[in-house]
């Protein structure tokens, strides 16, 4: 048995929110730099250079990478051998978000009533929290900060079970063609396949948390997306997407849910473990 005070979780969330908004994830920057060498359009090259300069200015001057400091999506894996004490977990997570956003002067982008009044909560809470109980005695926390220019491009389709891979590719391409330009390309694309409608959407987010190497199908889908020539900032070019990852889960005999999570070029993800 291990006891973890949820205040430690609040502190971790506060740290991860600050890091994600000020410092580009080194693997994200490496993927951007690698792709920038493939870009041949003059405007595209200029935008890649602005993206790289933005990362330096943000870190040095402590100005957020993007004015849309996003909605905070938190994934917490809690070991079965862990006892949580202190504030209720969700309150602790929101405390961490509140502290990071108010003390760092990040933008408060969350409104309370989504339909009628849309009154700002002025502390960027509540966040979206996914918890999972796993074996072990540690707490693993991942944070994804998502702007809504890209979240509005998220798409789900419930396919019949008899389709071929080609149809998933066509769905991906039509989604990027229709919505990619608004999501701040060059894009990071997460695809969730299987499960249920809601779970496929969650998988499409989780697919972008670890930036593991792409397999052959993922690379070929990425190449197809890049043949759309939407380019950096949608102004034409060779690089429309820099990374694409699929996460799958078993599903029902009658269906094949496919969710596409489109993320902008500053994929703001980070994580840590409390042991």
């Amino acid at each position, binding site marked *: 048995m291990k006891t973890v005070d949820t205040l430690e979780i609040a502190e971790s969330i506060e740290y991860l929110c600050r890091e994600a908004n000020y410092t580009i994830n080194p693997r994200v920057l490496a993927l951007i730099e690698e792709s920038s060498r493939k870009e041949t359009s003059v*405007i595209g090259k200029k935008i890649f250079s602005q*993206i790289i300069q933005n990362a330096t200015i943000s870190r040095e*001057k*402590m100005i957020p*990478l993007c004015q*849309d400091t996003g909605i905070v999506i938190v994934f917490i894996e809690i070991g079965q051998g862990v006892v949580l004490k202190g504030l209720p977990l969700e309150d602790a997570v929101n405390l961490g978000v509140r502290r990071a956003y108010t003390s760092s002067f990040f933008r*408060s982008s969350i409104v309370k009533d989504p339909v009628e009044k849309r009154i700002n909560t002025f502390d960027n809470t509540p966040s979206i929290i996914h918890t999972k109980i796993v074996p072990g005695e540690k707490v693993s926390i991942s944070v994804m900060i998502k702007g809504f220019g890209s979240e509005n491009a998220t798409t789900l389709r419930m396919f019949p079970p008899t389709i071929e891979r080609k149809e998933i590719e066509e769905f991906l391409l039509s989604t990027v063609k229709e919505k990619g330009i*608004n999501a701040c390309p060059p894009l990071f694309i997460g695809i969730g396949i299987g499960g249920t409608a809601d779970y496929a959407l969650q998988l499409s987010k989780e697919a972008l948390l670890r930036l593991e190497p792409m397999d052959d199908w993922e690379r070929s889908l990425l190449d197809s997306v890049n043949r759309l020539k939407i380019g950096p900032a949608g102004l*034409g070019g060779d690089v429309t997407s820099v990374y694409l990852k699929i996460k799958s889960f078993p599903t029902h005999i009658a269906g094949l849910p496919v969710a596409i999570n489109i993320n902008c070029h500053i994929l703001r993800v980070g994580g840590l473990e409390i042991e």
Partner: protein
Amino acid sequence: MDTLKVGDEVFVSGKVYGMRDQAHKKIVEIIESGSRPPIVLSESSIFYVGPTPPKPGEKVGAIGPTTSIRMDPFTPLLISMGVKVMIGKGKRSTDVIEAIKKYKAIYLVTPGGISAYLSQFIEEIKLIAFPELGPEAIYELTLREFPTFVGIDTGGNSI
């Protein structure tokens, strides 16, 4: 402005209104009810933006464009009332393209997600109206050599 063509690089200097979704909705409601809006639309420029608050001692925070197409239901009316320049990101609806052609306006785009970089080209930001909306209030921004590209030119040619 007539000589600018889609894709051309344009550096913008001067005052623009910073406003986005809820401010557009409110301004159009005010105009449609026959009242006077809190901003002067004639010969004006609008930047679709919701900045982060400046830190103490700083003039501006992070500033960059939001997705323009969400403003499209409100834009043709505002163009007809004198808005000449719009700055944002992404494509526009055919209604907006038609209004741009008819009234000889222009739509400029600038990349999203590079707000620390873009903040260097903002000299000042002032709150103008609807403070209760927080980041969605109307601001007046003073731009200096702010980098953009032509997204839709006065002839209606679009990216």
